[in-house]
């Protein structure tokens, strides 16, 4: 063991050509530090990072039986890994190495003060030596990755990611809180810019994922707890009772036809009705109904049981209870998607929910859909008449300091698509698009916009109304200042469509809390790096797909889902992860069990456990610890220490620099 051995340090001072040597007197520095206790050799060399430079270290380790190495050169952020590898090749643990930065922090910033720079360099090297003397070998632990993934959210993002992982040969558990997978895309009639039918491209994928031998679907299920870390997450799910036995149900729908009770349909956003026992939508996957106890007369009043009576397979089970499911998975994909901004509450000036004929874009999608509440006829919710004049308002709540600061990224093109819906269903209708800017960033979007702009009966007004008002006769009207013509225009539309901003799914906050992953100021999941690591989260092994990270159209959602899936596949094909060496370590003898460290850890890596003798101590999960050292800085007993940055090591540096 190195610890019992006499400490033998080799120190190497790099010239970095002339980058260091032209300012710092490297010979003098080498000579000065050679006098420091435990320093066995001190050399200077032109380029320490070069192959010959590294070879000097490797040979000295053998020849002088060195057990610590210090290199004074550039920034450790540049060449620390290079020298650690050299030290390892010399037969030492790579962490018995310390670096002093005498280039970026010395020669380059004190170019004209050669004497002072030389003195400072010597101090910096001595501080590194002081730390090196106390270094201990560190190791990276290998943690096996369970070859099974959890995907949370069954929209297009979750479906695509699940299929990619499953096709690579790994097991996937796909969890969806609603009774059917599909997400918001299932609500769309057509998808811009190609206008292909949304259901036609989505349902085959829904079926494929549900039939895939590597995929287990958990619909109508919530995630209630997640513990553990990358490679080994322990997941607890809660399956809500459908009151229908999935193993018996054939999806014939007899129960639904027989049920006499109705309620507003969640899927239809309240525009249509469903029964108390219902399919989420006609193409639901799985095609198994659910009973909504709030509207079911048997649950409310104790009588009815019509569904039970008529079910040919006796699948109805009023006694079904919530079911807990426990899983162990190696990686997780978050794909919980989005919801519309609550315009009714946040922006009463638009009269949404107050006036029946003010609807959202997503509601229009349902009105246009052949399977929707109006069988694909665009009618006014108030009187069922065909609207002849329609106003579409973009950026409702988006790009607005008082509401959502960000752009929803699909509102403009959705609005343009919606104008097309109107004129293609009602050729003599007039459409007014009130916009602030038209943003058509995606592939084919600008061309699509050009095409729609050519319709004579689709007009663009550059401005947003302040308020939507209602006349005594019930008709809607508003004024809008058109910045293109510098005129105030008064519109009297039969129907107003709001292209609202979007927010994360309401359950996301809770899921993020369960996972302890970082949330951005906009409320969406925060990626690890906005450019270079857009699918990773602050929690290792947890990845992002789709609108959970921020507004995204379908092409971007699918692309990110593929990226997240391939990260998961990479993790699983490798089969293990290596922990970082600079983790926290608790000396159980010193730990008083005070628990101060535990809530400070941003990664929930610390738990308090009872030892066999009944003593409470803190315990660090090194799979979760990221090595910040926050806990070690707070521990009043000195029990918590960060490996590679422990108190003694840092204090030794402080003392060297100040004495």
């Amino acid at each position: 063991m190195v610890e019992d051995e006499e400490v033998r340090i080799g120190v190497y001072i790099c010239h970095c050509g002339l980058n260091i040597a032209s300012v710092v007197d490297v010979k003098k520095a080498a000579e000065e530090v050679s006098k420091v206790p435990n320093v066995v050799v001190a050399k200077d060399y032109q380029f320490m990072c070069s192959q010959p430079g590294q070879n000097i270290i490797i040979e000295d380790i053998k020849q002088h039986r060195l057990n610590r190495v210090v290199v004074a050169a550039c920034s450790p952020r540049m060449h620390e890994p290079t020298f650690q590898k050299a030290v390892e090749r010399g037969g030492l643990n790579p962490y018995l190495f310390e670096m002093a930065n005498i280039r970026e922090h010395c020669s380059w910033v004190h170019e004209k003060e050669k004497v002072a720079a030389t003195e400072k360099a010597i101090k910096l090297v001595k501080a590194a030596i002081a730390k090196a003397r106390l270094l201990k070998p560190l190791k990276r632990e290998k943690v096996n990755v369970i070859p099974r993934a959890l995907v949370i959210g069954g929209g297009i993002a979750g479906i695509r990611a699940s299929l990619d992982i499953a096709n690579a040969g790994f097991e996937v558990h796909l969890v969806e809180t609603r009774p059917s997978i599909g997400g918001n895309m299932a609500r769309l009639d057509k998808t811009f810019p190609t206008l292909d039918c949304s259901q036609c491209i989505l349902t085959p994928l829904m079926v494929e994922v549900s039939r895939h031998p590597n995929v287990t679907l958990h619909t109508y299920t919530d995630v209630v707890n997640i513990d553990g870390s990358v490679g080994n997450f322990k997941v607890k799910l809660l399956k809500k009772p459908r009151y229908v036995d999935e193993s018996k149900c054939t999806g014939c729908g007899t129960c639904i036809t027989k049920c006499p009770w109705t309620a507003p349909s969640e899927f239809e956003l309240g525009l249509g009705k469903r029964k108390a026992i219902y399919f989420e939508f006609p193409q639901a996957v799985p095609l198994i109904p659910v009973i909504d106890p709030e509207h079911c007369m048997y649950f409310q009043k104790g009588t009815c049981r019509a569904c039970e009576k008529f079910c040919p397979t006796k699948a109805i089970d009023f006694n079904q209870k919530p079911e807990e499911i426990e899983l162990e998975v190696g990686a997780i994909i978050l794909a919980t998607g989005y919801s519309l901004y609550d315009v009714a509450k946040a922006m009463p000036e638009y009269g949404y929910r107050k006036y029946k004929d003010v609807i959202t874009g997503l509601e229009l999608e349902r009105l246009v859909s052949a399977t929707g509440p109006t069988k694909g006829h665009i009618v006014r919710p108030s009187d069922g008449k065909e609207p002849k004049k329609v106003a579409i308002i973009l950026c409702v709540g988006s790009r607005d300091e008082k509401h959502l600061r960000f752009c929803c990224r699909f509102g403009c093109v959705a609005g343009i698509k919606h104008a097309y819906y109107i004129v293609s269903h009602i050729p003599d209708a007039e459409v007014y698009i009130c916009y602030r800017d038209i943003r058509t960033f995606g592939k084919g979007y600008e061309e699509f916009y050009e095409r729609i702009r050519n319709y004579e009966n689709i007009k663009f007004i550059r401005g947003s109304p302040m308020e939507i008002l209602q006349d005594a006769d019930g008709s809607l009207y508003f004024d809008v200042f058109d910045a293109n013509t510098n005129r105030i225009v008064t519109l009297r539309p039969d129907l107003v469509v709001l292209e609202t901003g979007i927010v994360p799914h309401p359950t996301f906050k809770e899921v993020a809390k369960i996972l302890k992953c970082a949330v951005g100021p906009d409320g969406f999941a925060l990626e690890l790096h906005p450019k270079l690591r857009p699918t990773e989260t602050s929690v290792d092994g947890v990845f992002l797909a789709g609108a959970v990270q921020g507004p995204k159209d379908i092409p971007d959602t699918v692309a990110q889902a593929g990226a997240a899936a391939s990260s998961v596949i990479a993790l699983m094909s490798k089969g293990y992860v290596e922990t970082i060496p600079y983790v926290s370590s608790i000396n159980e003898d010193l730990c008083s069990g005070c628990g101060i460290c535990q809530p400070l850890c941003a990664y929930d890596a610390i738990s308090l456990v009872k030892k066999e003798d009944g003593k409470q101590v803190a315990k660090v999960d090194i799979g979760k610890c990221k090595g910040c050292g926050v806990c070690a800085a707070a521990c009043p007993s000195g029990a918590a220490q960060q490996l590679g940055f422990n108190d003694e090591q840092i204090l030794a540096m402080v003392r060297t620099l100040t004495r």
Partner: protein
Amino acid sequence: MVENFEPNIVVFACNWCSYAGMDLAGTSRIQYPHNLKVIRVMCSGRINPVYILEAFANGADGVLVTGCHPGDCHYISGNYKTRKRIILLERLLEQFGIEKERLRLEWVSASEGEKFANIAKEFVEQIRKLGPNHIAKELRKEVAVV
């Protein structure tokens, strides 16, 4: 002001933002006083106030603690903990007879080489005005008496 007084200042820097910002000052060749010497830690949240006290007790004339800007800590929230600790420590320093102006907390991002150089210049000037830290000598006397 004491003639020819060259302050000795210990800087603590987190690896991800501040240390990188100081590296940038170097790569951009922005000159600043040689009085500052850096100790690298992974996160500013690692900095135990004891280190700062130890630095002063040993005669450091100033201590500069640097970390990522609020919201940018590589470890989510380490710098918020740093901020709290420094505020508490400032109060304590006064009780020890150490001017709280000798301790400074600054957020320096990886792109703020120039900002760091400016802070360095200002802080060295500030410490020059305060003069040498006497506490170390006094402490040594006390220890000798005991």
